[in-house]
């Protein structure tokens, strides 16, 4: 890195820091979603949409994406600096998760010039919300078995079937969709195709799903003779599985190119330390209980270990044995950690753990009890932890599938 670059980066980082210090919204008077999967009310949606647009306009989202499509045209470390400033000031999440982290990088990687021009700016501004149509009611973990039909009819494909766990499905303008174009293909994967499908055509309906928390954030999406243009196809017909797998690599952090920012509030184990000092168990701060204190240290060690795993990617000699080991096990390790940490946080609050969101006596407004229930979204969604273990076992450790 040249001195000039370093200086420019330092200035950019300082500007970002100042901007987030001045512009990060404080308590809006209602509970903000901690992740993009928890946008359950119009009030939350509008608030986050405005916020993302504001961040993008200031130049702190998509800073490393090409200028031609609405990005900042800067190097990745500039965006990283902006994201760090966001975190430092505890800014709300970026709303348009699927667009920013999946569709965008995919378009930049393998999209046509026309598609990039058409979609990327709307992704960054949150004007066009994207959702993801992979899971089906009967095919959750077994994604390759997706059955939603896409039949070619002239210049159009006709869609019939349904997708589920569509995050922000009720707000989305587009869906990245995995559909079956050839039911007679030699194997189940070869019959799949990948579409950038509009949600606004007739025949597409969404129905909100009520989560275990009692809140909303996902829909089931029904397609009944919905017609989309052939130009919506991403890659070739029959390449859907390959494109979908590439997309999942973005989700799991195994492949870079995301717009930046974050779509989930990250957990700092020291928040739990703080909680353990504030929460009362049996009349004393939880941290004074030696058993709770010991478990707390275990969580801090684990949080630090996972953080260090991420840093290790930079040192090639430390990743030689199993080069895909850390990227492919990252999702499993993090999501299970966060689930257990939330569960522990809930127990730290002792008797107050019996209250739930909405009661005036709930500890931290019920954040921790709700957080625990919501944490399952990550250990189940995007491939359950059990499937993740199969992936790591087979692709990293070389254990046999059958």
């Amino acid at each position, binding site marked *: 890195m040249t001195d000039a670059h370093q200086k420019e980066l330092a200035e950019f980082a300082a500007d970002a820091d100042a901007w987030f210090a001045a512009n990060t919204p404080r308590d809006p008077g209602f509970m903000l979603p901690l992740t993009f999967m928890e946008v359950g009310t119009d009030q939350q949606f509008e608030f986050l949409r405005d916020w993302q647009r504001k961040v993008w306009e200031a130049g702190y989202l998509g800073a490393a994406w090409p200028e031609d499509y609405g990005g900042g045209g800067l190097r990745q470390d500039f965006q990283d600096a902006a994201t760090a400033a966001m975190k430092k000031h505890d800014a709300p999440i970026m709303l348009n998760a699927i667009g920013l982290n999946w569709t965008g990088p995919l378009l930049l990687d393998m999209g046509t010039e026309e598609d990039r021009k058409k979609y990327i700016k709307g992704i960054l501004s949150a004007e066009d919300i994207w959702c993801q149509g992979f899971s089906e009611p009967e095919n959750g973990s077994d994604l390759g078995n997706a059955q939603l039909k896409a039949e070619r009819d002239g210049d159009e494909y006709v869609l019939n079937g349904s997708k589920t766990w569509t995050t922000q499905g009720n707000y989305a303008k587009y869906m990245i969709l995995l559909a079956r174009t050839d039911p007679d293909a030699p194997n189940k994967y070869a019959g799949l195709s990948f579409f950038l499908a509009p949600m606004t055509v007739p025949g597409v309906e969404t129905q909100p799903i009520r989560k275990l928390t009692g809140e909303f954030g996902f829909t089931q999406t029904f397609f009944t003779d919905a017609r989309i243009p052939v130009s919506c196809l991403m890659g070739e017909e029959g390449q859907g599985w390959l494109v979908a797998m590439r997309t999942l690599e973005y989700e799991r952090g195994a492949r870079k190119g995301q717009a930046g920012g974050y779509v989930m509030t990250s957990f700092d184990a020291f928040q739990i330390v703080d909680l353990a000092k504030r929460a009362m168990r049996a009349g004393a701060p939880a941290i004074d209980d030696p058993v709770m204190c010991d478990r707390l240290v275990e969580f801090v*060690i684990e949080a*630090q270990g996972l953080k*260090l795993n991420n840093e290790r990617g930079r040192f090639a*000699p430390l990743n030689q044995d199993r080069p895909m080991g850390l990227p492919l096990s990252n999702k499993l*390790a993090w999501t299970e950690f966060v689930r257990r940490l939330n569960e522990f946080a809930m127990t730290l609050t002792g008797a107050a753990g019996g209250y739930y969101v909405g009661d005036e006596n709930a500890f931290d407004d019920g954040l921790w009890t709700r957080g625990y229930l919501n944490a399952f979204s990550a250990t189940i969604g995007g491939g359950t932890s*059990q499937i993740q*273990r199969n992936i*790591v*076992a087979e692709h990293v450790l070389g254990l046999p599938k059958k």
Partner: protein
Amino acid sequence: MNDLGALGFSEEQADLMEAASRFCREKSPMEKVRKLIETEEGYDASVWNEIADLGWLGIAIPEDYDGVGLSIAEVAPVMEAMGRSMLATPFFSTTLAAQALLAGGTEAQKKALLPEIVGGVPATLALAEANGEWDLTKIEARATADGDTLRLNGAKRFVADAAAARYVIASVIAENAPALVIIDAKEIPESALRRETIIDETKRACELTLDGVIVPKAALFDPAKSREAFERIDLVANLLASAEMAGACAACIDYTIEYLTTRKQFGRTIGSYQALKHPTVDAYVEYEQARSHVYAAAHSFSDQGAGEIAVRMAKAQSLKALSYAADRSIQFHGGFGFTYDCDAQLYRRRAAFHASQFGDETWQRQRLAELLF
């Protein structure tokens, strides 16, 4: 928020990692490890001489004392490679003794002993006692002044490689304060050493009776640096143990996978059963964190505050990872796992031994709670 240490990796570390891995693989195949277990010495003197010739005993010794002038961070990859191949030599104990000398020895002691150690003369520490203390300053052994000499009494346990060591540095109470004193092995009668039966059979340790041992007054470490020396011993020992366990854990997982991909039962390769697959992945996930902690501890070692935190985290995590990986390895080897011939027991025993030395997981977490909260 506390500084917990960060990860870094130098070119020197990378070079040493490569060289040490190659060396250990070549010098310490499992048949050799098994053979050495059966010997009294427990190590191959010619391999030890080669290690000295390679300069690895001087990695973290300043050039003034004939060392290479790097730091303990560069010893970590060597220790890791040795752990991975279960290479048994007095490297751990000798490196630890040298670091103790560097931190707390007088200039004369350092000048006299360090070049010898760098050249391949084994040395060790005698710290543990019957009280089972992991706080190294809680000592029962005594050094009583008698003219120009010190009369020692008490007994030490788990004196690593005591039979091989030319110098034994023992912790004692001298003038009411914790102190360290160098004992020339020549002053130790044969009857004062009893070989201990320890759980890790690849290692050697003795009980040492100090009663009747007399050393010159000049054998005492610099009293002004006593505290520093004890702190350094604790941290270096735990860092090296962590690195050795991270290496052993990698080998243990490889060993388990080898069996899971070849053994067949009910017409299927047993590694295809999720009941075996998933815990193996869990062991792997723990291992990767252990390795990251080890390299963060090595990198942050000299940072005030963060160094100790990082080392204690590394020890706790590597113990957890190796214990679990080896425990499951025994189980997943089925009937063979219950035999002496299965290597899984070697790995499990190693973790148990390291838990007994310089503080187990719970102890490390208790120290961390004091440091963190």
